[in-house]
């Protein structure tokens, strides 16, 4: 391939090996020690090599390819490394597709490897042949079909480089069976550049200067940060800017955990189920500084009424996100680790006590109307929020929290406390139900010394419930909390509010989750009484190894605050 920069790893003479062995050696050269996957006909030569290399490369057999790639995502999100999933051709490959789309929209670095029928069979509708390159093209950062063993080292080097550099994302490599069997001379050189792709952008000093001016002049400034801060390892730089400027800051759900929850200038969550102050004051600030976020519609609501009164500065690495949804006044292109540092150097120290008082006053309103009743209800069934509060009590914010999609996800993001970054793993952009259980497995293996708590609804849990088998077989010590309201709660909430309570297909008649967990030899318990919640949570967290706790929560609880879909952020409702 032309236009690729490389750097040698070692200086050994080329090895004469099979393509399949070359693939495993490529993974080792990229420091991969765990991969998730599921075998099948078109990938068997690689599995044969995985058998030989099992001391160096741990393959985790999931129960479905979706579980494998979500696990790779969870692994990547907490470790900052590239996650790897492997599957066979046809259905194996198509089962990865949801995860690839999820990783694309949430900028998660993963490399998916799929087997493919032999090159001579391509296009013949052979057994388990699917055009996975065609299918995955719009949802991959890059993809490539290897039909010749000689291509393997260079393509793998390029794949890992592309997945992790710039704005990270998923890469898919499809490998025909002949390329796995054929012998080639193996020599690995890491990729350090591709001429048609410029992931590193140097921050322009004049943009920094302009940003500094705007920040110094602002009376009611506000920061909104996203996952770019975490992906760019810019947590310290964000904190320094916030502290020196005294600017209150809010976050998108993928930005959550970049700044400790109890930081005095952390003003909570933006968007549809974000905090009252965060939404209302977005439309009152005079300067909005957006850092590594992409103005998703769930964050902005109606674009015609979003922060119209404010000047907006956008610190962003991906040029295609600039002025995509919200037209901004100043763009500072580049890695936010650089731009945040440069801006912080330039600004004068400041504080905004009167402006910040607005956040506190609005928090009090939200607390009285919503939060108090949710975290400390005096009667009725348990609530989702009080369960999260109890988890906070014991983890003290040090756990990795993995959530699925729906009401429990919004509640967990609103109430879970965090003391360190890369601790909130959730499917944000795609909203993939079934994400949490396998992602939590990957998260636990990516951060084995940390407590990992998966918080999942009864709906999403049943989308990837089979991964309990992987958790048992591989002994992954993840804690699973099922917040069971016997409903697809978020859809039910919308039906209640916008479809006159016509609960079409949202009620779930569920199996006995505790018995199911027992069937998988996973310790489990159900709790439905307030007086037993505290003890149950502590028991779960103190248990060695995996544990499933089913919490029976109120059936028709709604998540508030809420900005109705497509409405103005300042029309945020508390009831």
């Amino acid at each position: 391939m032309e236009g690729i920069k490389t750097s040698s790893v070692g200086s050994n003479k080329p090895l004469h090996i099979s393509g399949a062995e070359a693939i495993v050696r490529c993974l080792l050269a990229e420091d991969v020690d765990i991969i998730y996957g599921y075998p099948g006909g078109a990938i068997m030569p690689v599995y044969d090599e995985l058998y030989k290399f099992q001391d160096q490369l741990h393959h985790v057999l999931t129960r479905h390819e979706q579980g494998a790639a979500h696990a790779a995502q969870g692994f990547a999100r907490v470790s900052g490394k590239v996650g790897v999933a492997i599957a066979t051709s046809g259905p194996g490959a198509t089962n990865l597709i949801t995860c690839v789309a999820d990783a694309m929209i949430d900028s998660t670095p993963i490399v998916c490897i799929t087997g493919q029928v032999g090159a001579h069979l391509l296009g013949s509708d052979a057994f388990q042949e699917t055009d996975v390159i065609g299918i995955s093209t719009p949802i991959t950062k890059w993809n490539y079909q290897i039909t010749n063993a000689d291509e393997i080292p260079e393509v793998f080097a390029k794949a890992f480089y592309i997945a992790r550099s710039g704005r990270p994302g998923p890469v898919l490599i499809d490998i025909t069976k002949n390329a796995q069997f054929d012998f080639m001379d193996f020599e690995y050189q890491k990729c350090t550049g591709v001429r048609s792709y410029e992931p590193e952008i140097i921050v322009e000093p004049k943009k920094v200067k302009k940003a500094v001016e705007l920040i110094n002049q602002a009376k009611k400034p506000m920061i909104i940060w996203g996952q770019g801060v975490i992906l760019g390892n810019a947590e310290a730089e964000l904190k320094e800017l916030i502290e020196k400027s005294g600017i209150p800051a809010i976050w998108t759900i993928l930005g959550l955990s970049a700044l400790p929850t109890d930081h005095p200038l952390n003003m909570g969550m933006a968007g549809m189920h974000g905090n009252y102050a965060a939404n209302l004051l977005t439309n009152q600030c005079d300067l909005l500084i957006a850092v590594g976020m992409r103005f998703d519609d769930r964050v902005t609501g109606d674009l015609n009424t979003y922060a119209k009164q404010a000047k907006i500065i956008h610190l962003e690495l991906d040029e295609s996100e600039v002025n995509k949804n919200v037209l901004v006044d100043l763009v500072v292109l580049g890695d936010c680790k650089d731009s945040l540092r440069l801006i912080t150097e330039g600004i004068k120290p400041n504080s905004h006590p009167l402006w910040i008082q607005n956040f506190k006053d609005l928090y009090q309103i939200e607390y009285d109307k919503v939060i108090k009743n949710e975290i400390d209800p005096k009667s009725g069934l348990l609530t989702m929020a009080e369960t999260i509060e109890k988890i906070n009590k014991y983890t003290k914010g040090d756990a990795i929290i993995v959530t699925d999609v729906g009401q429990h996800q919004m509640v967990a993001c609103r109430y879970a406390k965090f003391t360190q970054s890369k601790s909130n793993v959730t499917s944000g952009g795609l909203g993939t139900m079934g994400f949490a259980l396998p992602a939590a497995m990957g998260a636990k293996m990516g951060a084995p010394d940390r407590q990992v708590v998966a918080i999942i609804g009864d709906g999403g849990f049943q989308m990837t419930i089979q991964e309990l088998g992987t958790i048992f077989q591989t002994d992954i010590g993840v804690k699973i909390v099922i917040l069971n309201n016997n409903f697809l709660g978020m859809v039910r909430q919308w039906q209640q509010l916008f479809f006159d309570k016509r609960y079409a297909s949202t009620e779930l008649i569920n199996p006995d989750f505790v018995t199911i967990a027992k069937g998988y030899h996973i310790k489990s318990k159900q709790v439905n009484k307030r007086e037993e919640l505290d003890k149950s949570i502590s028991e779960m967290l103190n248990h060695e190894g995996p544990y499933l706790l089913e919490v029976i929560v109120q059936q028709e609880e709604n998540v508030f605050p809420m900005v109705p879909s497509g409405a103005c952020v300042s029309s945020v409702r508390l009831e």
Partner: protein
Amino acid sequence: MMAKKTYTVSVYTENNVGLLNRISAIFLKRHINIDSFSTSESEIPNIFRFVIVIKIESDRIEKIKSQIEKQVDVIKVFYHTDSETIFQESALFKLPSDVLFEKRQVQNIIKNSHARIVTVSREYFVLEKTGFRHETEKLRRDLEKFGLLQFVRSGRISVTKSKLPIRDLLEKFKQNHTDQINTDHE
């Protein structure tokens, strides 16, 4: 809603399989109809140039450009209005040979349109006309009544009046690469 305008989008790319699919998917995802699409090797060996014609609101063209440019194998994207480019289309017309000899009118049409006769056989002859859309279109209408056997028009090909700094970009990458190798060896 803003009025739509015709833009010629020039995409310089590496010569990689599947890129056509990747680029056309960007238009598909946004429900943008492609008026014309052509691709060929560019002035630089092994670098390809796509020429894509679309009608789109002026506030969306920049977004499309950056979405295409974001693709790993795309080197650079430019877009231009008609007045900023020199553009042409080619058309081929296949007609029965008897009209060429029996209808004086046909000979006049060929002469006036500056079309070129590519081949003549006993049964048919083929005309080629390169020019603006309205010119090939007029020729098609003029020849229609003489029993046009086949007609085909190419996508637009276009060069820009302004300079496109592709060589400079590639040179810069090469330079950085050399710098890096030198640093590696230090």
